[in-house]
């Protein structure tokens, strides 16, 4: 169960996390086969479960640079069904764009998933329930969350590998901003900015923690992300059972120091593992796929010394 049953514990009490790096040079290859092979290693408890995939859909993007590629979403859905999931739905609540239907149609998501009417949920417009947050990193005590999220047995965060002009990077933890419903908070969900981006990321993920994360880094975005940066072909999918460890690994692949990323450093205290010795690396090594990302001047401090 994803909601409110994940454990908040310091790293010394937490078992090691597992993160796999899978090479994939393009969206045209058999992503389903790649993911099935990689995910089988994790022996995930998804049989008979209601799985919710949370991609990062921001705005209409015919170039395929801003949003999680629909081929990845389709392949992940197919893989979880092969692993025995009872159902696999896709839900997203874009932050700035109210016309979610316009985004998914521009992406041609239906070409990869089939008819969307029963598969896709606009989390911005779903029925909501007030939930007390499990941590108090921000001043928020309660957030309204969509019913689809609260009723999911297993949540998979499916972000794009991108830099972000406010948070430094946007990966599987920041991606969870998209479960906060616009129908309660507007477009953008400005209440999260006023409560602090990093503290809000922590509070959301402590309360509705993704069970698994799969980052689309086949083509990422560097520079002025999350929407105005440059495409960065990185040729990887990075996945794991601890979103903090996945994000830390992504940061290392991007040539950044995860401990210097505000929200990630804080997430390493209670939400998951940051340190490489606590992350069991599967598939490719970080060094073999490392692709330093350009960052805005304000985030030069995040760049590892050997990536400058």
């Amino acid at each position, binding site marked *: 169960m994803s909601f409110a049953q994940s454990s908040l514990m310091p790293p010394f009490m937490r078992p090691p996390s597992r993160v796999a790096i899978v090479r994939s040079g393009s969206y045209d290859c058999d992503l389903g086969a790649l993911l099935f092979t990689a995910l089988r290693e994790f022996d995930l408890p998804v049989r008979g479960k209601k799985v919710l995939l949370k991609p990062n859909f921001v705005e209409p993007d015919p170039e395929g640079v801003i949003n999680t590629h629909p081929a990845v979403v389709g392949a992940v859905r197919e893989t979880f069904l092969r692993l025995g999931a009872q159902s696999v739905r896709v839900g997203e609540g874009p932050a700035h764009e109210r016309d979610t*239907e316009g985004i998914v*149609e521009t992406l041609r998501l*239906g070409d990869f998933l089939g008819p969307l009417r029963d598969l896709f949920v606009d989390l911005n*417009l779903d029925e909501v329930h007030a939930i007390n947050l499990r941590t108090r990193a921000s001043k928020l005590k309660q957030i309204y969350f969509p019913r689809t999220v609260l009723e999911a047995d297993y949540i998979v965060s499916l972000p794009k590998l991108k830099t972000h002009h406010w948070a430094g990077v946007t990966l599987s933890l920041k991606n969870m901003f998209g479960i906060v419903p616009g129908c309660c908070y507007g477009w953008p969900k400005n209440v999260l900015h006023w409560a602090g981006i990093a503290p809000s990321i922590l509070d959301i993920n402590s309360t509705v923690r993704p069970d698994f994360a799969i980052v689309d880094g086949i083509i990422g975005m560097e520079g002025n992300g999350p929407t105005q940066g440059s495409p960065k072909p990185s040729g990887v999918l990075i996945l794991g059972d601890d979103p903090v460890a996945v994000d830390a690994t992504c940061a290392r692949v991007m040539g950044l120091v995860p401990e210097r990323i505000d929200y990630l450093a804080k997430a390493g205290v209670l939400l998951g593992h940051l340190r490489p010795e606590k992350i069991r690396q599967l598939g490719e090594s970080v060094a073999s796929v490392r692709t330093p990302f350009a960052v805005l001047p304000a985030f030069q401090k995040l760049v590892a010394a050997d990536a400058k």
Partner: protein
Amino acid sequence: METTAWALAALISPRPAPPPVEVCARARDWLLQAQRTDGSWPPFPGLPQGCWATSVASEALYLQGGAQKAVERGLHWLLHEWPAEGTVWRRLCHALFHSRVVGQDDSLRGWNWTPGTASWVEPTAHVLLFLRSLPPPMLPPLASKRRQLAERMLFDRMCPGGGWNSGNPLVYGVAGVPRLGPTAWALLALGGYAERTEIQRSLDWLEGVYHTIHGPASLALAHRCLTAYGRRVPPLAPALDELYSTNHFFDNVLTIAWVMLALNEGESGAAPSTGEAATR
């Protein structure tokens, strides 16, 4: 809340068939029951805080008639709800730490999505449209002040090349990319400034992206906006048919309401005027 308000607005908008009286009355009663004691409307009944839906609900009730007190209370709440970025403390922080990050004048305030947050383009536009729908005698002096401030805020938040995004036209010196929704709403709200270059440039942008629209809500909104300014656009109904043949649409009442408004205005010739109201 917002969905019901838009649905009511669509049902009572001018069109050949008369509005379904009983349905409209139920929608009105539901909205009236959901109004908070401070005059605002929350996103959902029972939520402890008012929000942007107050402007849409107030306008729908005003246009339907028979709820004068509720409309006045909604107006009062809106006029006294100030976004949070304009306080002296926030402006000092902005000047010290953020002035080189986001290039905008935070002393110009419009309206926020939710209390305690900053001004954004779309909620500001909704309130301006509501104010425009009211007869001058209903508007207290504060309305004029806030309308002028909000209009200046919208012009300040315009993207450098025309059009609007949610409300950050310049971040780290990089020009923001306009988005369809905020651009259309801002243009509708700034209807009294049709001759200004910025407005025409924004209309050019909207016209340029019109053929790339894949969502019915955006298509209806863009059509409504361009028609209001007298721009030539292809008929809406065939374009919606074409979208429907490939998309089938989600079940989204708000989208249907926006589509109805656009279709009704097209049929009745009652496009929102661009020449009235706005106070210079």
